[in-house]
């Protein structure tokens, strides 16, 4: 079956522009996660959705970052007034239920470069 998909795969933005990154989770998956992965580092948690509810947004680095999942399926991560330090790969993952033991399945990521 289809895995997690993300679009665009690559995004170049000028400093100060707004960007929107899309995640299509595996159909029927309850949980959805966003991570930020800097070059040569492990992923860093950004936010978590259980269906349409955003239950944890403690990892969002600033109020310029906003995520939504209005119908409990597709999610969008929006970054306003992008800065160079926002350059990273943004990963989306989904898991079947709300349980912490579930395996997370990852999309290919969106590589954001801010010039």
């Amino acid at each position, binding site marked *: 079956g289809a895995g*997690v998909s993300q679009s665009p795969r690559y995004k170049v933005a000028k400093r100060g522009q707004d960007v929107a990154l899309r995640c299509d989770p595996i159909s029927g998956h309850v*949980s959805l*996660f966003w991570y930020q992965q800097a070059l*040569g*580092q*492990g*992923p*860093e*948690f950004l936010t*978590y959705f259980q269906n349409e509810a955003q*239950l*944890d947004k*403690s*990892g969002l680095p600033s109020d310029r970052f906003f995520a939504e999942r209005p119908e409990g399926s597709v999610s969008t991560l929006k970054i306003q007034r992008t800065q160079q330090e926002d350059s990273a790969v943004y*990963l989306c*993952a989904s898991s079947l239920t709300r349980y*912490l*033991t579930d*395996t*997370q*399945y*990852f*999309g*290919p*990521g969106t590589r954001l470069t801010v010039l």
Partner: protein
Amino acid sequence: AQSVAQPEDQVNVAEGNPLTVKCTYSVSGNPYLFWYVQYPNRGLQFLLKYITGDNLVKGSYGFEAEFNKSQTSFHLKKPSALVSDSALYFCAVRDNQADSNYQLIWGAGTKLIIKP
């Protein structure tokens, strides 16, 4: 606070030899432990996980990992390495006592290079 350490930035192994990629962790309660692999320009792929039960966990592509509670370790192993195993490997942990803690904490990754 939860943390994961992967003490080796890079591991070099000759093809056909056994390989070990090390991971140690720190949590308040009991850990849920995961290994993922990342190939260039591709997403993270799940290899295996430890939740409870048998300390030796078998996963995809012939990999296995052993949970050692006293040493707080979860090292990834494979009896005979293949060149195609060359990739970046990540260990991750979640604390099972933190009911509202949805965060998976990741190590910095270990680059595994298998030489023919």
